[in-house]
């Protein structure tokens, strides 16, 4: 392949409209940040306009991780396409599976057994803790607290072990399937989760001891990256970023899916809409997730973990030796795939970052006609200029960390 010249040979005139007029006269400085930068959480590039150390404007340049996942999914059968969803938001793989499976289930009106719903809730909440641990580790690392990173990743290994128990893979599990789960959880699953439930709460306290009253942490986070309630709603924030500005909107509560309404949990809210409040909310969310997992595990019903609808769900292996019909279904589903009815659906769920939506359009063929993800990182990145204007350049990494963007989620 030919390599394009990466050096920018344009002039300031090309940036007119993106930067203020003061930049044209050289009064303010235009500075590039990224795409290779340790604190941009991936390959984000920002064009900063600075007056001294104060940020006048920041223009995100995305697409450095555009993978064409949505387009690739159109070329795959529905079951195959699930593997692609793992790789969009790679800190929340089970959540992406979840959104896509919910969309397929809504499209074909497929039932999901209650045991599968509960297991999905358990795994989605563990994934949320997993994602928040990576967020906390990297966010603290950006602001200068080195040791938190090591502790967070130590705990994260325990979660990855649980994912490996159920699916055989640490990160890209593809464990959720239309109509339920790939298979029932093995016997080691419940003791491993209970072990984690007993182990983890004290660790959250440890993190808070390191950070919450640390004067350096408070100086770097309080009153930084402020966004008002009105602006947060107007600009389409969701998840902890929205709740940090005192808006009580959690899709698990507001529009419950997959029996989230069976569980008791609180939605933590912030008052000030700054980086510190978003930090407090995510810490509390980890506790609430543990609480949900505890309830779901205690009340975990027995029964099947996948729907019995043979038109969409392949028969279990044991049936193949006894039933001709099972053989036919097996053959049809694994060669041709299933054909959902024509139609369009949109589902949304609460990902660790905010509202994750999945739009699915079907033309009746075994492959999706169009898949689109509404991802929280993309929306939050568009709010970043609003949040960072007027703050110091050193605060920017804290603000980027507080909206918890994942570039894979943003660019797809």
């Amino acid at each position, binding site marked *: *392949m030919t*390599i*394009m*010249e*990466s*050096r920018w040979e344009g002039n300031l005139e090309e940036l007119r409209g993106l930067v203020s007029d003061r930049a044209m006269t050289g009064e303010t400085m235009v500075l590039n940040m990224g*795409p*290779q*930068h*340790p604190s941009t959480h*991936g*390959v984000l590039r920002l064009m900063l306009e600075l007056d001294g150390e104060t940020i006048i404007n920041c223009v995100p340049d995305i*697409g*450095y*991780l*555009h*993978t*064409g*996942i949505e*387009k*690739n999914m159109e070329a795959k059968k529905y079951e195959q396409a699930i*593997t*692609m969803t793992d*790789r969009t938001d*790679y*800190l929340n793989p089970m959540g992406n599976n979840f959104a896509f499976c919910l969309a397929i289930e809504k499209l074909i009106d497929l039932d999901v057994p209650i045991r599968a719903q509960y297991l999905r809730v358990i795994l989605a909440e563990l994934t949320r803790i997993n994602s928040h641990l*990576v967020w906390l*580790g*990297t966010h603290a690392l950006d602001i200068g607290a080195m040791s938190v*990173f*090591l*502790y967070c*990743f*130590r705990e*994260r*290994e325990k979660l*990855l072990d649980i994912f490996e128990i159920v699916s055989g893979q*640490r*990160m*890209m599990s593809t464990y959720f399937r239309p109509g339920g789960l790939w298979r029932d959880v093995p016997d080691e699953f419940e003791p491993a989760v209970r072990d984690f439930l007993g182990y983890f709460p004290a660790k959250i306290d440890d993190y808070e001891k390191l950070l919450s009253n640390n004067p350096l942490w408070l100086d770097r986070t309080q009153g930084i990256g402020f966004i008002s309630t009105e602006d947060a709603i107007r600009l389409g924030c969701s998840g902890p970023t929205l709740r940090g500005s005192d808006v009580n909107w959690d899709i698990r509560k507001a529009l419950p899916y997959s029996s989230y309404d069976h569980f008791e949990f609180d939605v933590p809210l912030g008052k000030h809409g700054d980086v510190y409040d978003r930090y407090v909310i995510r810490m509390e969310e980890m506790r609430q997730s543990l609480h949900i997992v505890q309830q779901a595990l205690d009340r975990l019903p027995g029964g099947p973990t996948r729907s019995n609808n043979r038109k969409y769900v392949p028969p279990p292996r044991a049936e193949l030796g006894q039933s001709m019909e099972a053989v036919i279904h097996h053959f049809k589903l694994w060669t041709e795939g299933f054909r959902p009815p024509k139609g369009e659906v949109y589902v949304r769920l609460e990902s660790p970052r905010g509202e994750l939506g999945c739009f699915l359009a079907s033309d009746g063929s075994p492959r999706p006609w169009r898949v689109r993800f509404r991802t929280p990182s993309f929306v939050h990145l568009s709010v970043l200029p609003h949040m960072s204007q007027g703050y110091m350049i050193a605060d920017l990494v804290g603000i980027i960390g507080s909206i918890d963007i994942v*570039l*894979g989620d943003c*660019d797809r």
Partner: protein
Amino acid sequence: MGLTSKLGNMGIVTTRLEDTVNWGRTNAMWPMLFGLACCAIEMMSTQAANYDLSRFGMELMRPSPRQSDLMIVAGRVTRKMAPVLRQLYDQMPEPKWVISMGDCASCGGVFNNYAIVQGVDEIVPVDVYVAGCPPRPEQLIHGIVTLHERIKQERIVDWA
């Protein structure tokens, strides 16, 4: 280090220059802090407490290419990112090595489409490929140890 002989108890060892230099290079390799996608998270796991890359003298990740001698391409390389990656590689001082971590960096992985470079070896020379989507930290460590073995084979005539 290929120890050739030891002179009594005078505390002197003799060895070849090549072996000493290669020993130094393998035990203090500074990787560039450069993550692209999912594999970067596993690279961070490898760096963290459980797998502890400092056992291999690699705890110091440099965010600047000018201070690093190992590039771990962790994740999918898009066509938009490819020139940046090449520029970073060019900015690294010799001697330098590249590990292609994961299926996407090695061959495009599951993304055979318009956006992804089908293997990072199209733009930079790769020394070690690590398979997996994403590879486990043990696999990455195996790749690093393989690279060490390779470096130990290098001879002075190759350096020029």
